[in-house]
Structure formats: structure tokens, C-alpha cells
């Protein structure tokens, strides 16, 4: 065990929990010591990426499987990095082949991953434990 901070959340995959998870992210942001950037901006960003990734996880969970009724979220602070992992039981997707949003074509969707990539310093996706996880890292200078 180290001095790290870690929070692991399992929540029914319902959008009514988005606000709670976002709020917890905001609260954690507010406790980060020695953060030199804009704290309320950081709080908004963490709220935002949790909301985006959890919405996607809810949307892409297989509908027929009872094991998929839960979303799993892990937030930790380690070596001045804030790690956020959102797990789902869907088939996942490839960040590299995702087209960037076309700002001239006015579409209703397709901004979630772009937003996550804009506000986080590192975003990766991989298969894990029969499902898929998106890991988002924010450096805390």
C-alpha cells in the first residue's frame, strides 16, 4: 500500500447516476493538493469526462446480459497523475480509427470522445476482463 488515493465505484447503468459520479469527480478535484491550474476548470473537466465516458458505457453495454447492469469506475491519484478508468461489458472500439469530428457538418452526436481527448492528457482504450476499458489521465502539474 502507498499513500495513493483510490476510489472504486460500481453503479447501476442508469443515466440518473451521472450527476452523482460527476459530483464525486468534482469533489476529488477540489482536494488535489498543489494543483497550479484553475481548480474550478479542473473540477468541470473531471465531471465532464466522467459523464461522457459513463454515458458511452451505458449506451454501449449489451442490453441482453444481466451482468451488464453495472458500470464500474475507478478514480485514482498516483505520482501526480489523476487516472480515471471506466469499464463496460461492450465490445469496445478503436480510438485510432475514430474519425475526428467534422466541425462543418452539423451532427447531433460524435463530440464525446473529442471532448475527452481535448481535456485529458492521455486517453487509451483496451480490452480487459471480457469487456472494455477507457483510461483517461490528467497530469497534475
Amino acid at each position, binding site marked *: 500500500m502507498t499513500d495513493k488515493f483510490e476510489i472504486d465505484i460500481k453503479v447501476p447503468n442508469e*443515466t*440518473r447516476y*451521472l*450527476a452523482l459520479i*460527476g459530483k464525486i469527480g468534482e469533489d476529488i478535484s477540489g482536494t488535489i493538493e498543489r494543483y497550479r491550474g484553475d481548480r*474550478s*476548470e479542473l473540477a*468541470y473537466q473531471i*465531471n*465532464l469526462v466522467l*459523464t*461522457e465516458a459513463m*454515458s458511452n458505457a*451505458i*449506451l454501449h453495454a449489451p442490453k441482453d446480459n444481466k451482468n451488464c447492469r453495472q458500470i464500474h469506475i475507478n478514480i485514482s491519484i498516483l505520482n501526480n497523475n489523476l487516472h480515471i478508468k471506466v469499464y463496460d461489458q461492450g465490445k469496445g472500439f478503436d480510438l485510432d480509427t475514430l474519425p475526428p*469530428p467534422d*466541425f462543418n457538418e*452539423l*451532427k*447531433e*452526436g460524435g*463530440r*464525446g470522445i*473529442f*471532448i475527452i481527448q*481535448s*481535456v485529458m492528457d492521455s486517453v487509451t482504450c483496451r480490452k480487459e476482463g471480457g469487456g472494455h476499458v477507457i483510461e483517461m489521465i490528467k497530469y497534475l502539474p
Partner: protein
Amino acid sequence: MNTQIEDKGAAVLIRVNEDRLDAHNSGELKTQMLAFFDDGKNNLIIDLEPVRFVDSSGLGSLVSGFKNASARNGNLKLCGLQPQVRSMFELTRLHRVFEIFPDEAEALASF
């Protein structure tokens, strides 16, 4: 979705009385807007003054309303954006799409 509606003649004012406009409630906003379009009311002002947080799905619902209004020769305009909400429009370049006003009065005067 808690909204306050006022028909101002030139436009219908929809004030979103929610802390968050996200994947949980943006669908309801879309439904409410569609009801006005079905009614022939194609000019909408969405007042986001109470909203502290918007995600991509909230933005998407506004884009949907904007496209529906335009297709009907109407318009959807925004007002009352909090600084962090405004940043979301800038990040996604949507501030170039929507007409954005400080408050309801100015938005209404523009119709």
C-alpha cells in the same frame, strides 16, 4: 426536466431550470422542442442561465433543435450561458453555429 415556458409571440422562451443538461435529461428537452415545432412554433430561445454543466449530449439536443428550427425556416437562439457552459460551445466550435445572447430580452429583440 424542469423548464419554464413563455410564449412571447415572436419566439417561445424555454428556460432550462436544471443544474445539469446531460445524457440524463437532454432527451426530454428534445421532446419539448419537437412539441413546439409540431405546433408550428419554429422560433425558440433557450435560456441556459440556471445550467452549470452541459455535456456532449446536452449540446447534441440543442443542435437537434437548431436543425429542426432551421429546416422549418425558424431559428433557435441561446442566452444566459454561464462561463463554463460557454467554454463547451467554444471547445466544440458550436459558438459559431448558434446565435448567443447575454439575456432573454436581447435574444427576443433579435427576432
